[in-house]
């Protein structure tokens, strides 16, 4: 492992003290002079035409300052993440497609008045037939949710590589099966909130956003003003998990209310609104047919998946592709076929999730265990047999650079004492394994790269100006950590200005595991540029050439004669005294094939690099109640290189918990004809501190050639595999194969009873 001064050292994150003192401000904590409170009237119908909206009574209520409707106040603008998925009029004009969709909104001097005013708005609807199940929605004669989308098919991803039929015919063992996964709620700690302040210069907006630049662009289109007049501000974010990514209707509505009332407007969602009116994780069904040689070599796979996408496309093409692509980069297969459908239903639009998508991965990993059982091979050995290695080019043409697959499996197995435990645990207990990989840095068009500046201030401290976004995972601390290493300046001497579209250059946001690789990489470049400038000034002060200098702990010194040194602070003053400004700049883009496209051309390099992970779970199953208790989780993650091992562990522990416990055992959204039945925390079943075992993190280092200091990403490969490890452990404990997630007591019990018969 390379040695650095601060990179690789455990340090408290820079946001810790503010957060632990309760000083960190989130959107709902903000107040502006003259601020009003907004509330939204929502559709009670899953599918209906809006015939008329009468807001006259609401407007007369004392304290009401503005009432807006889609027809009266919004412009026609269909939002879509891709040019070919523009299907979402964010503030509907004449039609609603899910229960809870926005119909009208009020701003008033307090929330109670705004709420009362909603009751005075009269809406006339013409209900339309609705459909809630994606397989029903695909059938002929099903109600059409978008007229131009036959079969309610939103996206179809088709991949056919190698010779699938021939390889299946030649395989020694062919397994077929299916798996279903329910939708889950992200349950971010912070319910969504927006504060908008519109005046003649444009609009200022604060909201928990994983991509301020990605938000500013569509917001400007929806409001009909230039993008440069939309300023999305940086604010602390209380968790995202994929649910704070794209523009939300409420962003537009808060701006429209503010424009009309000529005062700032804050809208804070209730917990139920955070569930019903913000995108949540997709539901998923996967069918697969996979073939092996006798020696355990996995040779071929044929997959079909149907994703319940809700009423609009959202990140559809990505969400449908990602699980398949991740499998392709995890195991070195050349014969692969994939049919992925995202289907419209009359539900809230569905989005990405850090465990995108568990049903697909469980299906694959369970069938690998089934194959191991049938072929008499240890499941851990079967994975090693089919290990991805550096230098491989996948079925659709992605090359693998740094790859810690084998080391992850070996080290996780060693930490878990796999050989001692597998097949030897007491009755009712089991141990299971699964693997994963995750794309790091993928195409996001003209906003896919990140740029950064570093300025030096008169006191010798530095300020980074970067678009990097921190949704809670520690990205702000990460870029300061990287700059500290590159500049040779302590972290406490570096400030950060970030995630503000009015100040910061373009950044892709906290998407697709790019923050370290791209935003961090840009900051490293900017720091290197600033350091070059510092060394030029220092070389004159020290009588040495710039290339003979080094910076460490706030000082610049001559490498061969460390006694000759100058504090960076004095070098900065010297520069200013000579009319020189120290100002570094840098940028980083993903290293990908730009002509690759999710639907039309799913071939070529789709991410810069890939992280790897191996998860092992040990469980105990109560055969009388069906309750699964996870006893141990071991998570090995190839992160490239750990910038801050403590922050990395946070991500891996959180990932193992979210994947293995939340998604594996507990969480699902319940529906009745498009009505969410468990939107309140009183009704949603989630784990607490009592349901989580200790989690052991194993850090695997592969020094990625493209990553800053070799770093890739922090936990997603574990997130993608821990629930599958739990599923496989349940099988070892009980002999049952579950084909639907989460693995709730009733499902386990039902499967046990079926097996007993």
């Amino acid at each position, binding site marked *: 492992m390379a040695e650095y001064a601060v990179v690789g050292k455990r340090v408290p994150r820079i946001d*810790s*003290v503010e957060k632990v*003192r309760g000083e960190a401000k989130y959107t709902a904590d903000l107040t502006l002079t003259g601020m009003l409170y907004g509330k939204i009237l929502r559709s009670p119908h899953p599918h209906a035409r809006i015939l008329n909206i009468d807001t006259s009574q609401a407007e007369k209520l004392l304290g009401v300052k503005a009432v807006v409707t889609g027809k009266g106040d919004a412009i026609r603008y269909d939002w879509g993440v891709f040019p070919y998925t523009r299907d979402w009029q964010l503030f509907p004009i004449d039609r609603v497609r899910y229960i809870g969709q926005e119909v009208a909104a009020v701003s008033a001097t307090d929330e109670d008045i705004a709420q009362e005013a909603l009751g005075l708005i009269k809406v006339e609807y013409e209900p339309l037939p609705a459909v809630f199940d994606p397989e029903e929605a695909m059938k002929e004669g099903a109600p059409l949710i978008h007229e131009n989308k036959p079969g309610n098919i939103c996206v179809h991803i088709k991949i056919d590589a190698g010779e699938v039929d021939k390889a299946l015919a030649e395989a020694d063992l062919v397994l077929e099966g299916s798996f279903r996964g329910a939708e889950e709620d*992200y349950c971010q700690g912070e319910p969504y909130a927006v504060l908008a302040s519109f005046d003649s210069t444009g609009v200022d907006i604060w909201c928990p956003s994983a991509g301020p630049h990605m938000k500013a662009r569509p917001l400007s289109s929806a409001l009909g003003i230039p993008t440069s007049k939309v300023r999305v501000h940086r604010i602390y974010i209380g968790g995202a998990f994929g649910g704070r990514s794209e523009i939300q209707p409420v962003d537009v509505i808060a701006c429209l209310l503010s424009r009309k009332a000529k005062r700032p407007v804050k809208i804070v969602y209730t917990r139920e609104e955070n569930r019903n009116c913000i995108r949540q994780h997709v539901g998923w069904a996967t069918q697969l047919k996979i073939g092996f040689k006798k020696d355990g070599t996995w040779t071929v796979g044929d997959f079909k998946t149907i994703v319940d996408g809700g009423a609009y496309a959202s990140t559809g093409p990505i969400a449908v592709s990602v699980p398949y692509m991740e499998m392709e980069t995890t195991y070195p297969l050349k014969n692969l076929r994939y049919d992925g459908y995202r289907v419209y239903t009359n539900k809230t639009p569905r989005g990405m999730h850090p465990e995108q998508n568990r049903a697909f991965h469980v299906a694959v990993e369970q069938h690998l265990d089934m194959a191991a059982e049938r072929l008499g091979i240890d499941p851990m050995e079967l994975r090693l047999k089919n290990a991805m290695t550096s230098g491989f080019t996948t079925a659709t043409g992605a090359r693998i650079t740094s790859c810690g697959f084998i080391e992850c499996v070996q080290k996780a197995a060693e930490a878990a004492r796999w050989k001692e435990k597998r097949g030897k645990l007491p009755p009712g207990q089991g141990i299971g394994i699964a693997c994963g990989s995750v794309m790091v840095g993928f195409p996001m068009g003209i906003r896919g790269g990140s740029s950064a500046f570093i300025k030096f201030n008169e006191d010798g401290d530095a300020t980074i100006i970067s678009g990097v976004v921190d949704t809670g*995972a520690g990205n702000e601390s990460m870029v300061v950590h990287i700059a500290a290493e590159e500049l040779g300046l302590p972290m406490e001497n570096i400030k950060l200005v970030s995630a503000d579209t009015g100040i910061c250059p373009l950044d892709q946001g906290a998407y697709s595991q790019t923050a370290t690789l791209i935003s961090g990489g840009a900051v490293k470049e900017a720091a290197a540029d600033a350091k070059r400038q510092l060394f030029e000034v220092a070389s004159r002060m020290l009588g040495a050439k710039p290339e003979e200098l080094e910076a460490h702990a706030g000082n610049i010194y001559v490498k061969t004669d460390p006694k000759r040194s100058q504090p960076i602070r004095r070098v900065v003053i010297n520069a200013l005294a000579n009319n020189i400004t120290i100002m570094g700049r840098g940028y980083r883009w993903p290293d990908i094939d730009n002509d690759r496209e999710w639907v039309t051309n799913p071939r070529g390099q789709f991410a810069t690099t890939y992280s790897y992970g191996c998860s092992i779970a040990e469980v105990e199953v109560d055969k009388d109640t069906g309750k699964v208790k996870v006893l141990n989780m071991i998570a090995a993650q190839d992160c490239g290189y750990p910038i801050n091992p403590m922050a990395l*562990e946070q991500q891996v522990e*959180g990932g193992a918990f*979210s994947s293995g416990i939340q998604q594996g055992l507990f969480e699902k959204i319940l529906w009745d004809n498009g009505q969410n039945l468990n939107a309140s925390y009183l009704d949603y079943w989630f784990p607490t*501190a009592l349901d989580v075992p200790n*989690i052991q993190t194993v850090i695997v280092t592969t020094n990625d050639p493209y990553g800053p200091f070799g770093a890739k990403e922090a936990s997603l490969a574990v997130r993608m595999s821990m629930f599958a490890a739990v599923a496989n452990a349940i099988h070892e404990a009980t002999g049952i194969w579950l084909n639907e997630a989460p693995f709730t007591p009733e499902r386990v019990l039902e499967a046990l009873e079926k097996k007993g018969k």
Partner: protein
Amino acid sequence: MEKLTIRLRVNAEDNELSVPPNKTLLEVLREDLGLTGVKEGCQDGICGSCTVLLDGKPVRSCLVLAAEAEGKDILTIEGLAIGDKLHPIQEAFVNYGGIQCGFCTPGMVLTAKALLDINARPSEAEVRRAISGNLCRCTGYVKIVKSIMSAAQGGA
């Protein structure tokens, strides 16, 4: 609705407030006193983000009417550190990484304080039991438990 005049002692300071009788302690702390370290997460008394200490006991301030808190000592996260000096539990959360997005942190730290005030050397099981009403979606609780155990052992 006719307002009540109440006196609340918050973070060792007295306040006289005029509030509607149905206003919750959470709303008064955040809106009238500007103590936004008290977080609103679920409105149903489940998530524990709005936890404050009433006479040293953790309560969900979304389920307590402001008027009910009259005559009691109320401690919010803003009152825990003394000047620049963090409370040992806060220090442990910083040093052991018990914080991610930070939204649950104020409630979590106060719940931990209430535990350690009555049980200076809790077992890990007792710590987990104590914080089982404080929901965290980021951490998997590993570093939160470690932070609290370390604070109890004076190891912050």
